[in-house]
């Protein structure tokens, strides 16, 4: 009987502790709620873009003829690259057994890609600078607000032959009809697919020379990030987070950066830049 009473008291105390810890956790969460991230700012230390990213995104309205952002005269067509280190914040992306996180690696890759692109004379705008996680739409909007930009999203996969790199172009998706009869068009990438394919093939060709086992031409995949991007857009995915040592991935960064920069430079003359940001090519 005494034992029973003891158990009851213990249960009571346990439940009291439970309540208290819930309260404390709640309080801690309120205190540590993240501040809104600033994602569309160009990196510090670089001149601001000729066309600063608009505060209100266009939402990827690729077909809108009357854009609120009238095109400013700009020389030379393509000169901005929007670089998207994927994932970040609470989303680590792919995770390797050795503690390698995709979100960290792509940020380091982005630094090197950025440098290589700047050496080729491009202006680079990053969708995130640190460990933030802007939404897919926010990242696309960074590109859609630019005129004469291309978009590159960087990834490290969980699978695939380690040491290979694949370039992806968005595949066309059939639309779905809502219950209210509206077609959610959200397909800003559609008019750019041909250009994206051309851009992707150029970059993939250069990557294949350097990273044996990589495909010769770009692949298609239904990449969410690309769908809402109103610009020539590619995803570059490196294999993989399963390497034993992070250094294996780090060693790939200069080659990837060089291929992307030279591929973008080769693509530049073929891209006739639309008159409005996010406009049709």
């Amino acid at each position: 009987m005494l034992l029973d009473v003891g158990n009851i008291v213990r249960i009571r105390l346990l439940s009291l502790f439970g309540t208290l810890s819930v309260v404390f956790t709640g309080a801690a969460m309120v205190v540590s709620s993240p501040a809104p991230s600033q994602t569309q700012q160009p990196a510090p230390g670089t001149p601001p873009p000729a066309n600063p990213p608009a505060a209100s995104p266009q939402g990827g309205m690729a077909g809108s003829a009357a854009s609120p952002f009238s095109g400013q005269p700009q020389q030379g067509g393509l000169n901005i690259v929007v670089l998207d280190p994927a994932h970040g914040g609470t989303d680590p992306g792919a995770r390797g057994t050795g503690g390698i996180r995709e979100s960290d690696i792509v940020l380091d890759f982005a630094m090197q890609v950025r440098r290589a692109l700047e050496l080729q004379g491009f202006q680079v705008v990053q969708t995130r600078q640190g460990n933030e996680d802007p939404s897919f739409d926010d990242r696309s909007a960074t590109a859609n607000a630019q005129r004469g930009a291309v978009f590159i999203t960087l990834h490290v996969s969980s699978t695939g032959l380690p040491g290979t790199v694949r370039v992806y172009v968005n595949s066309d998706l059939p639309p779905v009809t809502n219950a209210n009869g509206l077609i959610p068009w959200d397909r800003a990438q559609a008019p750019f697919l041909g250009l994206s394919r051309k851009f992707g093939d150029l970059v993939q060709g250069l990557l294949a020379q350097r990273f044996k086992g990589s495909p010769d031409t770009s692949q298609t995949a239904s990449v969410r990030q690309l769908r809402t991007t109103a610009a020539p857009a590619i995803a570059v995915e490196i294999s993989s987070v399963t390497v034993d040592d992070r250094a294996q991935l780090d060693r790939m960064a200069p080659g990837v950066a060089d291929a992307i920069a030279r591929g973008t430079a080769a693509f530049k003359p073929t891209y006739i830049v639309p008159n409005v940001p996010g406009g049709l090519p």
Partner: protein
Amino acid sequence: MTPRWKVFVIAGLAMAVLAAAIYFPILRRRVRRAARLQQQSEVQARRELIQPVAVNPADPRVKTSLFWASDAGDSTLAPVTVELPLSRDPVPRSKQVLNTLLAGPVDAELRTLPPDAVLLGFYLLPDGTAIADFSEALATSIPSGIVSEQLAVDSITRTLEANVPQVQRLKILIHGQEAETLAGHLDLTGAFAVRSRQAQLPASQPLTAPSSEKPAVPTSDKPPASATGKLTPDKGPGKLSQPERKS
């Protein structure tokens, strides 16, 4: 300790015991109820799962093509042909085929879908759009990445294409909900083309010329006529006569 203190301590303990004695049955009842609820949903899920795979002796045994990875670590698919008793009705047939795909190949290395993922439901709309509802594990257990997620979806769509002619396109739900991506990369907001384009859209050839298929010369970089047309739904709701490119 003075006797007065002893009385206080004992009184306090007695009150705590009393409170606990009142609270304990309530707690026990709650725990039991929670356990019962979980059991129920498990039974429900199992019923959903078992129903479609139930073998009907009247079902004819047919050659079934299942698309698994062609090589471990490779990102291509290869069909494996097995003989299965399949229903003639497209919905149970799709469930049978997808459950076999989920069960996986003999060589577990060639799996395209996580072993703990289950098909919770499968529906077919009159226009040929299928809706497959998978458990959360499809999204949480799959290796994250464009290559792995695309391989998973391709194995589902190509297996349906090979075995269920009625399915034209596929919408994937995760636990009854529309998901933005499978595991951070692959777009689940739309529907995937299942039938090959030739079989599906014989009358809309002009529409099936997306800019990607045009010759690679700079002068051709104008939007195709269909590109602007895509944004004006003049064909009316429910008509899905858009170009569908297989990924």
